[in-house]
Each structure stands twice: as structure tokens, then as C-alpha cells.
């Protein structure tokens, strides 16, 4: 007979990543389901993925540029700068929120069927990424509207997208794992997202942050991602030490997230 499965305490740990590979088909299907279901029974469907970042951009441009009179990065139209920030932030915040609730939303699956639990929050991040791609189309449209041509830096953009995914996945896994047992995080997550919008350089350029605070400011991993995207697409200035700090935080949060998730996922079925 083909495959022999042995179930023992702690055995699961050893074939962890191999198991995820074997269940890749379920991962595709879950991600497809979440994308397919996301805009069911809505009137304007996937346009929501455009409207939310667009309106955020309009409001932030008004508040930060017109009212607060904050400067833009060199020669970049303010709305364009805000939109790149909004794009990255919307991806991070939807990914985090959806992933945090993904385990509870799939509790009937978790308590009845075995599969590597990791694929559930990752599938939720994939859905947020689909929204990101739609909104990215709008960004290209805006660049044409403003007749803005990115420089060769744009070649690095995919790298910052990957960094953005990592910056989302790390904290998401950590919070997802805790949210299964401590529903406190259902309250904490919207709060993080709400505050984070103002703490991260979404509506303004991080170059206006005073020099002596910039390293500290870069502890927020989203700062590195947004700055990187602006640098590669819009040619904004880049502050390398800050970038290094952000990336270190991303790697660390990824490691912490995976570790926390693996330590607790065995008991998900008992707790959910």
C-alpha cells in the first residue's frame, strides 16, 4: 500500500514543510474560494478594491497637502505619493484583519479535517493581494494621467512587494495564532489598523520625520515597505539605515510569527 501515516505526539513537527507542499492543492482552492466569495452579492463587486484606496487618497491629499500644507517628495505629485502609500497600507491592513479572523471563520474546517493550518491565514493574505493587484492597475492609470514615468528604480519594485508580503504575513501569523485562544485580538486588530494608518507614512512623506527620530520610526516595518515602493516607483529619497531597520524587523516578525503559529497550531482544534 502506498503511504503509511504514523501519528504520534510531536511527529507532526518533523514533516511540517513537506506536509504544506502536499496540501498545496487545498491552498489554491481555499484562496480561490476566498477570492470568489469576497464580492458576492455586492452591487459593484471588485470595484470596491479601487474605491477604498482611491477615496482614502482623495481625503488624505486634502488633509495633508491642502490643509496641513505638508511637502511632497521631490517633483512627485502629492496624490500619486499618497496613493502608493495607501496601496501598501491597504494591503497590509486587509491582510492582517482577514488573516486574524480566518481561523475563526474556518472553524468548522479546523475542528473536523486535518490539513496544515498555516494555509488558512496565508490564503487570506492572498485575497488581500488580489485586491492590491486591482488597485495597482489604478495606480498605473494615475501615472499616465500625471504623465509620470518611473526611472530604472522600478525594477526593484517587485522586491518591495515581496517585502510587503513578508511584513504582512509575519504579524498576521502571530496574531492569528493568538486570536484562536484570546479573542481579545478581535478588538486589538481594528485598533492597530486604525492607529497604524496615522503612524505609518501613508498620507505624508517619511522625509518630514526629524532625522534623530527616523531610526526609531523605522521600527514600524510598513515604513520600510512604503518608502521602498515610493523610491522605486516615484524616485523619492531613500534613507538606508531606516530601511535596514525596517527589514530587520520584517525578518524578525516573520520568524516570531511562524514560531508562535507552530507552537500553538496543534491545539487549534481543541480551542476553537
Amino acid at each position, binding site marked *: 500500500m502506498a503511504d503509511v501515516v504514523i501519528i504520534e505526539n510531536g511527529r507532526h513537527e518533523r514533516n511540517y514543510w513537506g506536509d504544506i507542499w502536499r496540501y498545496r492543492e487545498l491552498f489554491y482552492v481555499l484562496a480561490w*474560494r476566498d477570492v470568489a466569495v469576497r464580492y458576492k452579492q455586492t452591487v459593484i463587486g471588485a470595484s470596491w478594491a479601487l474605491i477604498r484606496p482611491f477615496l482614502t487618497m482623495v481625503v488624505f491629499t486634502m488633509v495633508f497637502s491642502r490643509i496641513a500644507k505638508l511637502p511632497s517628495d521631490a517633483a512627485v505629485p502629492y496624490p500619486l505619493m499618497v496613493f502608493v502609500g495607501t496601496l501598501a497600507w491597504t494591503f497590509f491592513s486587509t491582510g492582517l484583519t482577514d488573516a486574524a479572523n480566518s481561523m475563526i471563520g474556518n472553524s468548522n474546517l479546523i475542528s473536523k479535517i486535518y490539513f496544515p493550518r498555516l494555509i488558512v491565514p496565508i490564503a487570506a493574505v492572498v485575497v488581500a493581494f488580489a485586491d492590491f493587484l486591482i488597485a495597482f492597475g489604478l495606480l498605473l492609470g494615475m501615472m499616465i494621467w500625471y504623465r509620470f514615468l518611473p526611472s530604472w528604480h522600478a525594477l526593484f519594485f517587485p522586491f518591495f512587494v515581496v517585502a510587503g508580503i513578508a511584513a504582512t504575513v509575519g504579524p498576521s501569523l502571530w496574531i492569528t495564532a493568538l486570536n484562536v485562544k484570546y479573542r481579545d485580538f478581535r478588538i486589538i486588530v481594528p485598533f492597530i489598523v486604525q492607529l497604524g494608518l496615522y503612524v505609518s507614512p501613508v498620507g505624508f512623506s517619511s522625509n518630514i520625520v526629524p532625522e534623530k527620530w527616523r531610526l526609531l520610526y523605522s521600527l514600524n516595518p510598513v515604513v520600510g515597505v512604503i518608502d521602498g515602493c515610493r523610491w522605486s516607483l516615484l524616485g523619492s529619497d531613500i534613507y538606508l539605515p531606516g530601511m535596514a531597520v525596517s527589514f530587520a524587523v520584517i525578518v524578525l516578525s516573520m520568524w516570531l510569527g511562524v514560531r508562535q503559529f507552530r507552537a500553538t497550531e496543534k491545539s487549534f482544534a481543541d480551542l476553537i
Partner: protein
Amino acid sequence: MTAVITVENLSKRYLLGHRAAQANHSPDASLRDAIMRTARNATRKTGDLMKGREVVHGDTIEEFWALRDINFEVKEGEVLGLIGRNGAGKSTLLKVLSRITEPTKGRVTLRGRVASLLEVGTGFHPELSGRENIFLNGAILGMSRVDIRKKFDEIVAFSEVEKFLDTPVKRYSSGMYVRLAFAVAAHMEPEILIVDEVLAVGDAAFQAKCMGKMSSVASENRTVLFVSHNMGAIKTLTTRSLLLQSGTITADADSETVIEKYLLTTLDARAKALKAKDLEGFRRGRHYDNPPASIVEINIASTNDDPDTLPEVELGSDFTVEICLDVESPILAGDLCVVLMNSQGERVTSLVASDKVQGLSLRPGENVVKLSVKDLFLAPGRYFADVSLDPMIDGKSCDAIFDYPLLTVVNHGQVTHALNRPWGSVYSKDARWSVTQKIEDIAATGT
């Protein structure tokens, strides 16, 4: 034949947290004590959280062994029944076997792909169409897309929902939903199939279809582990069964012997339930959300109320079943069904209220329903009842009690019966015997 499932010394422990009982209620519990306790717990919980250990709420922690030293083997092509009362550990065992939760000790070896039907329709998404759900559910149950595509037509034909394939399943009737879900599950081809209580759903015709599918799975040399409260189904589908009692296997033999033993264990549970006025142990594992009414007591009228002995009914006499219902919100037309079973788990008869009356009108508070059985004479022996209460028009399912020991029919010498002849289940009170002789023949030989 090789063993497909081998379970060795399997144990599973859960940690339960308790609050110190007296500290919360005693009037002189000081605020300082409460603060001290909270602080101590918070320190412990934070410590556990930091070390990645399981965090348990409460002041004291108790270990609870849901399974303890389980050993058994299942051979290829065998259909094994798993019987036990609520909380005996059946679900935990299935969860370990289907890898949903890890065992604390011991080891399980599975040779082949395992698919579990812990509940049909797991993972169905209401917003997606029937077609999309077949693919989704198939993937969740471990089928590849190629497999599903190959079997798609077969699944659709089995489920009888062709016309509604592109309708979101949230618009399906519950019957259609269950049929589609079972169809997907029935068409995956695992070496080991774990089935838990699926046969409780759907109409009679569909249940028969499911039974057929299950026995065909077994005849294809696949192994089935079958858990059910329906002793009749266990008896027809399985040859061997295990009896689980508080986490240990207390019987491993042919199904008939095990069923008999299981029904005997319910006697103790009945005594406990009567003393506590709580039938919880007889409810099916599945619980209803806020049922409008529940069954609180079942008894035979005008017998002694000693909880330790089963009510006795004289052979050939009428009896009345009293069912106490605790009603929360009024039910205009309720339907009660009492199924009587003998001690081998075979159904003797089912008595359904809606066969005789338009529906029972139940008002909030305690209601006692009396069922007088006038012309049914049971043979001597123990009898068990499944009692279910449901509203006849929409409304939610209320309650269902399983394998409740109802009565013993005794023969205090009124009827003499040949000792070596088994009684069977029914007794005919008015059977008449007569002899007719063919006179002509006698006359012919006489002259």
C-alpha cells in the same frame, strides 16, 4: 490480511481549569484574596504564554484523560463499529485518527489514505454554487482536481441536484444540501473511511442509498470505521465493534455481543439521570442551539420510582409512557416519536404522535405527555427507547434522547413458555389454537 489501522497504547489528555469554588461564593471572601488569586493566575498564564505552553484558565488545573491506553487493530476490508455513550471518547478517538488533534501518548499507524466524514458538508460555502462547492468540498476532503473532474458526473447523478448546479447552495433545501454533500464524500476513494453519524440525515430513501454506498465501499476491500448511535445500522453494517467507556475499550467482540453490553451500561446512566433529573448523557453528541423545548424525564406511569431498577410491566398488560418536557417557547404543533428497541438493538416499533393526533400543543413550563400503549404486547426482556421531539412546521429541532432504558417486561408465571424457545420481541396475547380434523379420511379408514 494486513492490519490497516494499528492503535497502540493511545492516550489523550486535556487540561481543564477550575475556579476555586468556595472562594467565589463565600460571603467573607475578601477583596484581597480575589486580587491575590487573580495576580497569581495572571503570572502563571503569562509564564505559560511566554514558554509556548498551553494556557489554562482557572485557579486549579485538572487533568482529564479522554482516552487511556487504547489498543486495537483493524484489518483490510473490515467494517468496525464504534459504540459508546456521550463523552466516552468516541469523537476524541476519531479526531486523533483523522489527525485533527495530536495524541498525548501512544502511536497510530495508518496504511492508506484516510477520509473522515465527521459531518457531511464540512466546508461548503453558502455563497458558492453547487458546482463550485463540489470542487471546494472535494479538495477539502483530499481529492485532487483531476479526480473530481473525472467523477463529477457521477457525483451530480448521485446527488440528484442537476437542475440546481449553478444556484448558490444557500438557496438549497436542507435535503438537497445534504444529498450533494454526501455525494461528494461518497465518491472519494480512500483506503480508510471514518463515518460518524451521517446516516442521521436525509429522508428514508436517501438513507437507504447511503447505507448501500457504505456497504459497497466495504466490499471494495476498503476499511470503514463507523460510529453511530443507531444500533440497527451498527448491526447491519458491521461485524465487529468496540465499546468505549470513559476513555477505555471495555469490549472488543462481534457487534451483537457489544451492542448488548452497551445497552446494559445504559442502566447505570439511567439511574444517574433520574437522580439528577437530567437526561444530558442520553442526548446525541450534537447539541441544538437554544431549543424551544427539551425532554427532561421519561418514565412508565404507575410503577415504583426507584431509579436503580427498571420499571416492570407484566407480560400482556398495557403500559403508559410519560414524557416530561420543559418548554421554553410555545410550540403549536409538536411531534413526539418513540422508537422501541429490544436488548439486541433491533427496532420493535415506532410510535409517532402525528400518526394519531394533529400535533401536540405545548405551552411554556413543564408539560407531561402521556402515551398509552394499548395493544402492543412485548415479550419478556429489556426494552430501550429513542425519543425525539420536533415541531411539525418549520421551527428548530428540539431534542432527541437515545438508547434510554425504558422498561422490563416480566413474566411472573402467568404464561408458561418452553424454556429452550427464545421469545423474540412481541407476544401475542390473544393467539388461539385449534385443531380441525379431516373427518372423511378417518371415516374412510374406519370402515
